[in-house]
């Protein structure tokens, strides 16, 4: 058994000052950070802290007893699991069953045998470590399933789903939703002349610039090879055109270094707002955004157009 348990915060909820003091000293010696509570209310408050993943709860406490706290913590949707060990003078099997059924992971009869307590806390620690590993793997899998590996933008599946969900929300709250479809100008030429690694660098840098230039609740996705999509909740047509134009100017002013050379890159964009479609759906928004984007391409690239197409809107912007 290792001499020290890796540092963790542990809640000790115990109204008996002697028991509490002994536990505090022992647990500190084993490397724990201690949080003390003298009653059920204090225990409940301490358990709201996300770093409290281990708890020693006395069965009998004022305000709320150990099993009651167990029940409550299991009913709440705390993000991470809390391993709970009940301390009790009750050694009847019906008491033990009641404690475990209330949600305790383990129990110990008082006065506590400390070697046993240490071993049991190590079991708790292992379960928490296992959960942490699972959550990390889950987060990594979610990242893989929803993000584009190169640009770290949202992938096509996710961004389309987000657009659909936000359209439903926009309809419910009677708020506008906008979309920018954008496509890098002459990107194939960059790949052909400078190589695919240079093309990748350009995409990554453009993704960074866009990410820094939108609001925190906007989402950017990689729709195709060099085609990107920005979904902007609660944003009307006037605002989306201003945002797209600002992003266009920032990107056009950037010198992206790849293979020791500076590359200037621009994009063409098409904007659409849900208020300008009769029955907006995700597909219709994308179609309309594409139309506006092709208008920008046809008019000479490096510009922003909006749907519905108005000839005066597709003006060339100079950088």
């Amino acid at each position, binding site marked *: 058994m290792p001499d020290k348990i890796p540092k963790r915060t542990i809640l000790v909820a115990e109204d*008996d000052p*002697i028991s509490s003091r002994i536990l505090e000293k022992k647990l500190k010696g084993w490397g724990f950070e201690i949080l003390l509570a003298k009653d059920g209310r204090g225990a409940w408050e301490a358990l709201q802290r996300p770093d409290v993943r281990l708890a020693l709860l006395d069965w009998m406490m004022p305000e709320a007893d150990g099993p009651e706290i167990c029940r409550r913590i299991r009913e709440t949707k705390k993000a991470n699991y809390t391993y709970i060990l009940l301390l009790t*003078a009750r050694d009847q099997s019906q008491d033990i069953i009641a404690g475990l059924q209330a949600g305790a992971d383990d129990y110990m009869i008082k*006065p506590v045998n400390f070697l046993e307590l240490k071993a049991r806390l190590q079991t708790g620690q292992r379960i928490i470590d296992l959960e942490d590993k699972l959550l990390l793997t889950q987060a990594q899998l979610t990242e893989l399933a929803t993000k584009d590996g190169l640009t770290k933008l949202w992938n096509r599946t996710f961004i389309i789903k987000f657009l659909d969900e936000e359209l439903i929300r926009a309809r419910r709250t009677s708020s506008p939703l906008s979309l920018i479809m954008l496509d890098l100008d002459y990107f194939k030429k960059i790949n052909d002349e400078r190589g695919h690694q240079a093309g990748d660098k350009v995409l990554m840098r453009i993704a960074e610039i866009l990410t820094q230039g939108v609001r925190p609740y906007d989402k950017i996705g990689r729709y195709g090879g060099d085609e990107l999509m920005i979904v902007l909740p609660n944003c009307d047509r006037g605002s989306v055109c201003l945002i797209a134009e600002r992003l266009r100017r920032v990107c056009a002013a950037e010198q992206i270094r790849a293979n020791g050379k500076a590359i200037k890159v621009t994009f063409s964009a098409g904007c659409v707002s849900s208020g300008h479609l009769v029955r907006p759906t995700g597909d219709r928004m994308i179609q309309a955004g594409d139309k506006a984007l092709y208008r920008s391409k046809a008019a000479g690239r490096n510009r922003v157009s909006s749907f519905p197409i108005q000839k005066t809107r597709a003006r060339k912007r100079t950088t």
Partner: protein
Amino acid sequence: MTADGGIPMNKAEALDRVDGDETFLQELLNLYAAEYAEKTVAMENAIRAADFRAVRELGHALKGSSANLSLPRLQDAAFDMETAGLEKNIDGAREALIRFRHEYRRLKDYLETP
């Protein structure tokens, strides 16, 4: 159960519990003295008011503290107070409190004896 006889404290066991730290054991005994003073007065009041729930809870708490310090006779008397509370036996509670106080005096004598 007789009031006298038997060692009031299993000191070796108590010291083992605190890894042989005499100073820490003394700190715990001081805490116990404070607990004793507060809870025996509360127990007296609970018996006077025939508050059996309080009798049971105070008995339970004193039983736990006594067990932690390896005080078997005090633990027994506290257990009897808890049981009296459960059984709503006022005479039993009164008798157990008298015995608890007697055992505490014996503990003090034991600790003060060089």
